[in-house]
């Protein structure tokens, strides 16, 4: 049992995209899609004193994943180790989860038509390997481990090392990708890529707001109608048309 998490040291990170490409290669991410992203968060300051940083982002395997709540078929679920996973065979590719993620961590795989995202390389972790991005990062900026293992670097960085989450008052679902960066860098990153409150897709809203009610009403009404007719029939008796 574990509670997997990641710490990303943005001070080490040089924004080289090695993680992006390693992940792309490991998981056949199609051109245009991304399981992990490295984005410059901009520059702030007065010449020549500036703050800048990259933000490496991916699925945060949140404590309270809004994507799991949004999935109609249960294809997206959280396993016993805290990894939020997608059962590709159960996913229809409706995109509810994509809109429900405040961090934009999910995408629909254009080749396969189903949702996809970082899963902390669960298949690799199961074999005792590190996630591909952690393995490849030249700057050793990504640290992976379990928050239930007091010996792990992740544990120490999160509980004693000042690693921070990117959350807001609107969005505080407990992301498990933490960051090490100077306070002004965290500010810059959070301002450039703020978590957005989860959205329900239009089709989903129509389903739960309107269609579900209409269907239940129609089925209920016809059922009741027939039930009434049935009882009347019992009372009235069979109609003999011989007479």
């Amino acid at each position, binding site marked *: 049992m574990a509670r997997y998490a990641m710490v990303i040291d943005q001070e080490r990170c040089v924004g080289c995209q090695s993680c992006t490409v390693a992940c792309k290669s490991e998981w056949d991410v199609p051109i245009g899609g991304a399981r992990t992203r490295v984005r410059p968060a901009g520059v702030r300051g007065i010449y020549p004193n500036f703050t800048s940083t990259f933000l490496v982002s991916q699925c945060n395997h949140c404590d309270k994943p809004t994507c799991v709540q949004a999935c109609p078929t249960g294809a997206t679920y959280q396993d016993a180790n805290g990894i939020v996973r997608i059962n590709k065979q159960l996913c229809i590719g409706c995109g509810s989860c994509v809109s429900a993620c405040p961090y934009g961590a999910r995408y629909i795989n254009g080749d396969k038509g189903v949702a996809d995202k970082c899963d902390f390389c669960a298949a690799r972790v199961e074999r005792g390997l590190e996630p591909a991005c952690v393995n490849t990062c030249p*700057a050793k900026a990504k640290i992976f481990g379990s928050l239930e293992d007091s010996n792990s670097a992740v544990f120490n960085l999160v509980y004693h090392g000042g690693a921070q989450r990117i959350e807001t008052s609107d969005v505080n679902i407990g992301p498990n990708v933490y960051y090490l960066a100077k306070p002004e860098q965290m500010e810059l990153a959070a301002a450039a890529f703020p978590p957005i409150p989860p959205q329900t897709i239009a089709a989903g809203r129509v389903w739960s707001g309107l269609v579900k009610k209409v269907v239940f009403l129609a089925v209920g009404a016809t059922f009741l109608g027939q039930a009434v007719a049935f009882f009347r029939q019992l009372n009235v008796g069979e109609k003999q048309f011989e007479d």
Partner: protein
Amino acid sequence: MGNEISRRKFLQVGTGIAGAAAAATGAHAAVHPPGWRGDQRVEQIATNCEMCFWRCGVMAEVADGKVVKLQGNPHHPLTKGKLCARGNAGVALLYDPDRLKYPQIRTGDRGEGKFKRVSWDEALDFLASRLKELKQKYGPESVALFPHGVHSGFFATLMRAYGTPNSAEPAFAQCRGPRDIGYQLTFGRPVNSPEPVDLEESKCMVLIGSHIGENVFTSQVTAFADGLAKGAKLIVVDPRMSTAASKAHFWLPIKPGTDTALLLAWMNVLVGEKLYDKEFLDQYAMGFKELEAHVQGFTPEWAEPITEIPAARIRETAHAMADARPAVAIHPGRHVTWYGNDTQRARAMAILTALLGAYGRKGGIFLPSKLKQGRIPLPPMPESERGRADREPGLYPLASEEAYGLTQGLIETTLSGNPYPIKSWIVYGQNIFESIPVRQKTLEAIKKIEFMAVVDVLPTEQTRYADLVLPEATYLERYDPPAIVTTHKRPFVAIRQPAIEPLYESKPGWWIAKKAAEKLGLSDYFPWTDPDDHLRRLIAPLNVNEQELKALGAVSFEGKPYIEDRSEDDGPLFPTQSGKIELVSTVLRDFQIDALPKYEAVEQPPAGFVRLIYGRAPVHSFSRSENNAWLDDLMPENPVWLSTEAARRFGVSDGQKVILENQDGVKSPVITVKVTLAMRSDVAYTVHGFGPQSPGLRKAYQHGFSDTALMTRIAIDPLMGATGMRVNFVRVLAAEKA
């Protein structure tokens, strides 16, 4: 193929290999077991990367005859399992549908791009017959070789055996030459590659123009990040706030072309305030008194108006370096051909390093260790009476060795016919159009050529002008000579072996060269039978277990990187003319050139223009990777960076489409502007290696723009012939107005 057999053999051995070379590696020796990729079993082949030239260790994961993933090789002493974006994207190169697939012979006009497919036999016969004709008609010197990369040795041997002394690759005159010469003059040895900079142990790192982080060499990034994490101070001198500069404690946005002034001012502070490593200099250096006198006038106050860096800042950074000495890593840079005075700037950097006692010391520049390399005895090479034709006689006194060929010189000679005509180019892995500036000369020179053969992996512009195109297999499909690396704290030997058989009809370079040699009657110069034979001969003196080497990819040895590790048996510490660190260069003095560096002003941009400077991106290796599907996805084009002030002056905004026009009226295609606060207003910056004109590169074709196309002027370093390229100026025009 021999390779195939040995690979199978070692896999069967299983875990039977004991720690025969454990003493050498210090790690357990083992056959590399197969791995997993999800539920798929994969074979793991240890090799090294060629997406750039750092040659990081790679584990190629192979399943069903396909390379499914590339991972860093954890056994590789240089990179220890790390692999950058380009390295990871090697799979996309291997399976790039645009690759050259079969030999071709030109049918249309030169440059038209019309070819017919031919067999290897026909192609090599054609090559041999043309070379023989040229030898008869014009002499063997009329053929010039344009190679690239350490693995071009096969072609170097071939062409030298053929009889031409003319060979030049851009690594010298378009890249590292000035610093290698500058450091060689000072310390007795060139810098070499990988650069022996002890970043991870450094207490103060100094980057002059170097943009580590955008310039990604995997192990260098690791060392940089480690050093910083340990608390090293970082000083970055760059007109643009690079990624490295964004992490710096001191970012000095220097006026371009004035770095030497800054270096001299730093020397002034260290010498004047007695912050230099006296003990070190007393023991190892000569010429201090002269240096002391020389730098007296170069105060920070003198440097301030020149460099536009406040004097206080110059002092502050000099003190930071002094506080950290001798663990000060002043990175010598890599591409340093900027203004035509670059050797002297390299000299200044070397001298500064010496003043801080940071050469051969922990945290500074460390010493290369010795590794015996096997030699393959060859018959004597033919002597050329006419000699090299890449320079006018008497010029570039420091570019004396044969390895220091001047590419632009060969192009000039082709054009002029002086001292004798060059009528043929054999190009191996070079894209002359992108790597050599003053493209118009290249195009003119090509008109004089009677025969051009190009060996490459992708259909670059170079291939379009060829008479004969030979498809080389990628690094993942071929054997190349082993890397025997001495500029690492643990020197090592690392191999490149094929992960799969070459696709299509591509062939490894060694095969092409050997077969060509056969056709030319030069087989004696390729006395080895196959790659295994070649490898064995080269690594013989190292006494490594071949199976272990092939399983792990590399074997390392104890090194002696610091002076304190060395004894007399290790040879002279400073193999200079004087046997000491030459603060004053005796060699330069002998040539009656400035024995101590001086600051020389460079030409300023005319009114309304800014200087065009260029650099690297972490996801590309210039034109080598521009057609790579995954990397193209991340960065399909190169915007031109301008400061907010410069953008305002030019009347353009972030994301706008513009055209650059240089001082000679040459225009770029339509490109995008990127505006940033953190940059000087007298420069325009872009990433080199975009804008290919070859339609065969379907993904990259005309993406972005070529900075080389705008380099219509160069400034040549009189000491060794390097072409300074940061001497072109541009103005920015909105796309509609242009």
